[in-house]
């Protein structure tokens, strides 16, 4: 029985076997000598039978068709014509048409198989699920780095004029500066970051002022808003004691660094 399986896999049916025989002869299907083809096909069937292989019904049907064609071919020419006129279709042409058609689908099956194998090696891009920074409606509240940059600028300015004074003991504390800032904001309701440093005299005062500012932001007393990149920072009283700033600060983090993060880079 194993041989049978092998046979059956090689030839998917009588048409397949016929195509194989034609291919072996290296002739075009249209030019094939059907009498010869019939002889070979029947020989093949006989071999299968001798080997006691199971022969699918379709092969036997084809064998009888081929024998019919062969017998017609063997008739004298005048009788042949008569037979042909009787019938609607020449069985030879019918067979050739069928072979040509089958051959085309067999080729199409091969190209499908090529695609099937190729598909095994094609991988769809499954992107890292993009994660977005919260949408930025107008301009974001000032980011930490903006503050650092800003204080840096002031520090630089101050350092030019207070090199000498720096050695003296600092007369300011952060808590004193906090009081000053709260007072200033209450008076003016809208304060510019640069305003804070107009009157400062030492670098340590700048540091205290800055730390005081950070502290007040942290306490949600103040909000810093920068309306344009590198523009001056406006300091205002926090609108609502708590909730507002939590929301506001959530959009400051890194909006200018990356609009789109991937989840792996985010923190959970």
């Amino acid at each position, binding site marked *: 029985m194993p041989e049978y399986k092998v046979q*059956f*896999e090689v030839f*998917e*049916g*009588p*048409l*397949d076997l016929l195509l194989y025989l034609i291919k072996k002869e290296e002739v075009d299907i249209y030019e094939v000598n059907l009498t010869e083809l019939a002889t070979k096909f029947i020989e093949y069937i006989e071999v299968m039978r001798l080997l006691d292989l*199971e*022969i*699918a*019904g*379709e092969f*036997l*049907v*084809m064998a*009888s*068709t081929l024998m*019919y064609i062969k017998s017609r071919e063997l008739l004298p020419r005048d009788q042949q014509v008569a037979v042909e006129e009787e019938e*609607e*279709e020449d*069985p030879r042409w*019918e*067979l050739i048409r*069928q072979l040509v*058609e*089958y051959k*085309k*689908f*067999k080729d*199409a*099956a*091969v*190209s*499908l*198989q090529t*695609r*099937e*194998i*190729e*598909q*095994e*090696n*094609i*991988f*769809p*891009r*499954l*992107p890292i*699920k*993009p994660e977005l920074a919260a*949408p930025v409606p107008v301009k974001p509240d000032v980011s930490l780095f903006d503050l650092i940059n800003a204080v840096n600028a002031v520090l630089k300015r101050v350092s030019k004029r207070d090199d000498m004074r720096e050695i003296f003991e600092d007369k300011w504390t952060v808590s004193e500066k906090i009081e000053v800032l709260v007072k200033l904001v209450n008076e003016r309701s809208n304060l510019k970051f640069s305003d804070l440093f107009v009157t400062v005299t030492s670098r340590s005062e700048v540091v205290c002022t800055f730390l005081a500012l950070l502290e007040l932001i942290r306490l949600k007393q103040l909000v810093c808003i920068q309306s344009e990149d590198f523009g001056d920072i406006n300091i205002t009283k926090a609108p609502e004691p708590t909730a507002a700033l939590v929301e506001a600060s959530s959009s400051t983090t890194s909006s200018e660094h990356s609009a789109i993060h991937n989840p792996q880079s985010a923190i959970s």
Partner: protein
Amino acid sequence: MELKFILEAILFSAQKPMSPKELRDLLGEAAEQSEEAKPFKKVKEEPLVAALEELQKDHETAARSYRLSCVAGAWQFTSQPEFAPWITALVGLKVRPPRLSQPALETLAIIAYRQPITRAEVEQVRGVTIDGVMQTLQERGLVEQVGRAEVIGRPMTYGTTALFLEYFGLRSLEGLPAAEELRRIPVTKPESLLTADAGLATAPPEQQLPLADVEKLTEQTPPPNPA
């Protein structure tokens, strides 16, 4: 901003293939959420598909390690097959059902090009019965019943599914190789066949074959269903 780059950015980030309809819906949604997206609120299907096709050509020309493919009408970025060894090392082997057998592929090809087609018509082209194969193809979701033929007995007709296109990475049935030519060859009606030369018919083999091993035959290939 150019439409094709917007589409590219979307497809680049999408977690699944996107159809033109889904893309249009997305453009509309983005326009409602964002001022910048407004100009692309109402893009018609035609220019959208044209932009996608231009994008596909762009990437084809760039000849990089990936391409933009359209499978079953939906667009996505896919890797070029030659880089499979590395991507396999990265993500593991692609999970796919076993490859189709030769008979299954031939049957599938005939159905794909000639759909809707009855089982008898397929058998006529292949010259063998196809019961087992048809069952496999239906079980794997590559082929489905699509209707009934307007002939005696009103036999079922079959066609290929969207999964068929996906499985073979085809954009549409138009994308089949030599589609035009293979569709053109007419399939002779099975009933005309039965009245013609019996040798080519697809009637149950028992009725036709005066041969010894009919028993064995029926074990292997069950007689076609009367349906």
